């Protein structure tokens, strides 16, 4: 028995075609705005340079001097990420404490300063949103102009942006653990800080440390590209080698970068496994 051809057709074909055409119609201005023109890739003049550059990726540059330079930038990148993350914890932690509603004494009864406390929470939320809404590399671009070239701008940029993110996530962690101990301590008449450190923090600690380590891993990735705006580390070396179109150096740095991310990844995963 053979099926008549009419029944083999997909009944939803026409609507799908319509949706497809509509999507392309909506996409058209986007293509115009992005100056979408694959032809430029194959334009003989530019493609010749690109191909020559890509060819020079091999062999890798392995001269001793260059490797020493790359090693130094790698250490610098790691140090930038670590120092930046540490400062970010110092920024995010207090802000998270302010924002955490569970620590509010007015929640358990009328107090004198409660309007002030509630009033303090809103600006702190605003600060967190502001800090994390400007990407770290924008902070770096601005800070390089204020502090000069070098890792200081990157460290502060990571500290500011990640401080905002950590503050938000710490706050979420603090609100998500069992709130009864904290409340009991508060109701027994203690201050918020002791309520936090004896009631909330011990419960939140594993997740707190775990998330901080995860952010450090992100910071390593971020600091590797900070050099593109002049803020030191591997990125600066990469930018230099790219400008000079020396492909061998670029591929060496990319390989080191790849290994660095892999190591940070593995280290962070191992540390976080230790916590569970």
């Amino acid at each position: 028995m053979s099926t008549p051809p009419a029944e083999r057709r997909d009944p939803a074909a026409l609507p799908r075609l319509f949706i497809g055409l509509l999507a392309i119609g909506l996409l058209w201005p986007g293509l115009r705005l992005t100056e979408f023109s694959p032809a430029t890739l194959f334009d003989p003049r530019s493609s010749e340079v690109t191909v020559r550059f890509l060819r020079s990726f091999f062999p890798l540059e392995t001269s001793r001097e260059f490797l020493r330079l790359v090693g130094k930038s790698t250490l610098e990148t790691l140090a930038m990420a670590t120092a930046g993350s540490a400062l970010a914890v110092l920024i995010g932690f207090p802000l998270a404490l302010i924002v955490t509603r569970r620590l509010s004494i007015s929640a358990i009864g009328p107090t004198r300063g409660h309007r002030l406390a509630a009033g303090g929470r809103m600006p702190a939320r605003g600060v967190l949103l502001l800090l994390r809404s400007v990407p770290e590399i924008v902070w770096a671009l601005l800070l390089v102009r204020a502090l000069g070239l070098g890792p200081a701008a990157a460290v502060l940029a990571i500290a500011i942006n990640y401080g905002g993110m950590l503050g938000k996530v710490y706050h979420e962690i603090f609100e998500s653990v069992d709130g009864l101990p904290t409340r009991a301590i508060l109701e027994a008449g203690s201050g918020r800080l002791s309520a936090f450190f004896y009631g909330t923090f011990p419960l939140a600690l594993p997740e707190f440390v775990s998330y901080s380590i995860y952010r450090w891993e992100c910071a390593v990735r971020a600091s590797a590209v900070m050099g593109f705006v002049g803020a030191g580390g591997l990125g600066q070396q990469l930018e230099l080698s790219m400008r000079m179109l020396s492909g061998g150096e670029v591929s060496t740095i990319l390989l080191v970068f790849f290994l660095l991310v892999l190591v940070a990844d593995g280290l962070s995963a191992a540390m976080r496994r230790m916590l569970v």
Partner: protein
Amino acid sequence: MNFMPWLLLAGLCAAAVASFAYLGLDLSGLTSGEGQRRMLEFVAAFFPPETSPAFLARVFKGSLQTLAISAVGTLLAAVFGVLAALPAGGRLGRMARGPARVGLNLLRSIPELVWAVLMVLAAGVGPFAGTLALAVHTTGVLGRLFAETLENSPPGPTAALRDSGGSAVASFLYGTLPVALPQFSSYTLYRWENNIRMATVLGFVGAGGLGQMLYVSLSLFKQSEAASVLIAMLVIVALVDLLSAWLRERLAG
């Protein structure tokens, strides 16, 4: 009591101290009177932000361009991601799986900004380079996620279509794709959100959008223009943040 977190915490503190020592940061510029005066001057130069209609129109166009870069880049990545997920998800035989995964990992592990520098070399300065950079990196990310989705999708419907005589392509399109599509689109949306944020900064290396405007204004010491661009960036990123948080809450609840 579990000592492990405390132990890790102590180790991390030691690493932080070592890092500060290694970098030998000179942050006296932030604390000394002279440094603070210079910082204040630097910040003051950004105010008031430029608000001439002509410039605001350019900022608006730059914002649209940033959104377009992220959208087109993500969409291209979704298309190529599906294509790459076929071999990487083991649909084209066991031999193709390994190499496809390695390729996707390679695309993924080179950050967007590095791709952008390469693309600016290949395609010239402008938004097209940024679009390509996002597309390439995101193809690596989505390809891997899509491949995992394909591997986890139930084989039953496709096998049934195959057994009843459907071609390989038709069985995939009508057996696997409808099951995998919701997951595909949610991954794509999630990456899009990420890419909007990324597209605002790709311009620092010449890849178009608001980033390029910011970079140019700062290089020309036109801080008040830079301030307007920064505000536009802030609004875009904050809006995307709030919108996705709200959507996620709606979808979860």
